[in-house]
């Protein structure tokens, strides 16, 4: 008991300090807890709400459903056409991700490994598209272009426009290129590779971690996109995505709003992303965290 003399000389201050520490620790955890509750509250409302009946949702103040109605999902999937919405969202997100990664990785490869006339102009152009926004104005000429190309009646119009916004992915990938040593390129050239085969055989395999992070980012953006598919599918409900179909349900063709279907539909939209996030949250955070470093 080495501390015994100290306790004898100042017993009150030590007890006081300890109480103080417990108290401030308590405040800290209450603060963290409150924000955590605030954060998960709407997600829990959606999750539990998706199993409630419409009546229970609109009348009762309960957290857990009294009876778990899995049939809400069946109803949403079949009657409210969420099968189609999900397919459209999946189609758009998949091809947008592939296109974005291809365009951005090719451009980042050339920009990082070569010097050429107009390089800095190209990079500034990409940076500018990230920051300058005149809002929904641009969707009108984009739409007219797609009509001319006969792409307005398919999902490809939306996909091409989403791919065109690949500046963020480009900058994410440029960051990862710094980690691939140029010696590898040189060695491959000596072994008879050319500019293209170095990209395909050396860069792409080594860029996999970066491509993975960028893919999550691109997929999530396309999956969550609302305004572009909304405008594009106004005259063509067959092409509606999950976000648009869900919002449309609120304005409903029927008199009463079907809140239980909205909740089930919202779950269909947020659950896939949440599940991926549960396993890969570090990668999601890497994109945001990386953007202010340096």
């Amino acid at each position, binding site marked *: 008991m080495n501390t015994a003399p100290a306790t004898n000389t100042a017993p009150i201050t030590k007890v006081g300090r300890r109480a103080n520490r417990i108290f401030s620790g308590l405040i800290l955890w209450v603060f963290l807890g409150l924000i955590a509750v605030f954060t998960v509250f709407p997600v829990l409302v959606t999750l539990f709400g998706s199993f409630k009946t419409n009546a229970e*949702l609109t009348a009762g103040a309960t957290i857990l459903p009294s009876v778990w109605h899995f049939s809400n999902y069946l109803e949403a999937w079949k009657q409210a056409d969420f099968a189609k919405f999900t397919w459209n969202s999946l189609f758009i997100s998949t091809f947008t991700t592939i296109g974005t990664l291809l365009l951005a990785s090719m*451009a980042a490869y050339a920009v990082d490994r070569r010097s050429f006339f107009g390089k800095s102009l190209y990079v500034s152009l990409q940076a500018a598209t990230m920051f300058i926004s*005149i809002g929904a104005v641009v969707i009108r000429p984009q739409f007219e272009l797609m009509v001319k190309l006969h792409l307005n009646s398919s999902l490809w119009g939306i996909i091409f426009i989403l791919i065109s916004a690949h500046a963020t992915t480009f900058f994410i990938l440029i960051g990862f290129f710094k980690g691939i040593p140029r010696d590898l390129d040189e060695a491959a050239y000596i072994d008879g590779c050319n500019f293209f085969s170095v990209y395909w055989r050396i860069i792409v395999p080594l860029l996999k971690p970066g491509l993975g992070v960028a893919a999550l980012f691109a997929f999530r953006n396309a999956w969550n996109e609302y305004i572009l598919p909304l405008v594009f599918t106004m005259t063509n409900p067959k092409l509606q995505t999950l976000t648009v179909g869900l919002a449309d349900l609120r304005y409903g063709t029927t008199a009463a709003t079907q809140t239980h279907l909205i909740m089930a539909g*919202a779950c269909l939209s947020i659950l896939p992303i949440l599940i991926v996030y549960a396993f890969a949250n570090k990668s999601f955070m890497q994109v*945001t*965290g990386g953007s202010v470093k340096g």
Partner: protein
Amino acid sequence: MTSLRKLGESYSFILPSLIFTLVLGIYPIVWAIRYMFYDYPGYGEEVFIGFGNFASLMRDEAYWNSVVNTAVYAMGKIIITIPLSLILAVILNKGLKGKNFLRAIYFMPTVLSTAVISIVFFNIFNSYNGILNQFLLKYHIISKSIDWLGPDLAMVTSIIVAIWGAIGNYMLLFLAGLQNIPDDVYESASLDGANASQKFFYITIPMLGPVLQMIIMLAITISLKGYESIMVLTEGGPIGRTEVMYLYVYRMFFPISSSSTMIQQIGYGSAVGFMSAIIVGLITLGYFWLSKRLNRIF
């Protein structure tokens, strides 16, 4: 010859990206710059009117109302989000038990769809049968339903939803910034007897300086441009109380939902979009200039 070939290779790898950017990113802006000098409702004749659209814009009270609303919206969001997320980042930067789990929880809103979560928030805040009101009534915290989306509170509610989506994002940006502050600084401050709040104000804030400025600038631009959440939550209503700049721009081109009506104004709308971009640019530059000056004073 080889250098010419190299150049060709480089350009061929840039080309797909460049074509997409020019055709779908730059051309629409050029298109808008042309139309902002025209009177064109979207069909029929295009009439060149010079700066006529901008003259009408100056007199457009609804637009300037939306500009004021945007300022209130952005300010409210930033004033609460930035300190909260900074405090969270400072707490979760240290060796707290479960910090990775908490980080993941707080960052979660960032991965979810703004539109979808705004629909959920609509059901939470709805004054009739809304989930929040039902809870408050059940536990007798309130005796009468609160009109969360009514004229008085709609803006506050919209800001709360915006804060919900933003805290985790800025927390993470701050966490990245905090990594750059070396631990020894805190250690020597502890030896000198500094407490937690002293360390926060005399070490964290000053050493975060440039990163803090950049994050606030980012927050300003993002908040001024945001309209998706409001579009779903309140549609800019009631009586224009939550109408923000870029939602007003949207309205000039497209209806809010497939069932609502609208008056299309291509020429005027282009001018409104351009003006909004200028306002965002000016405010951002203004902040940049101000923070540089404040830096010199302190």
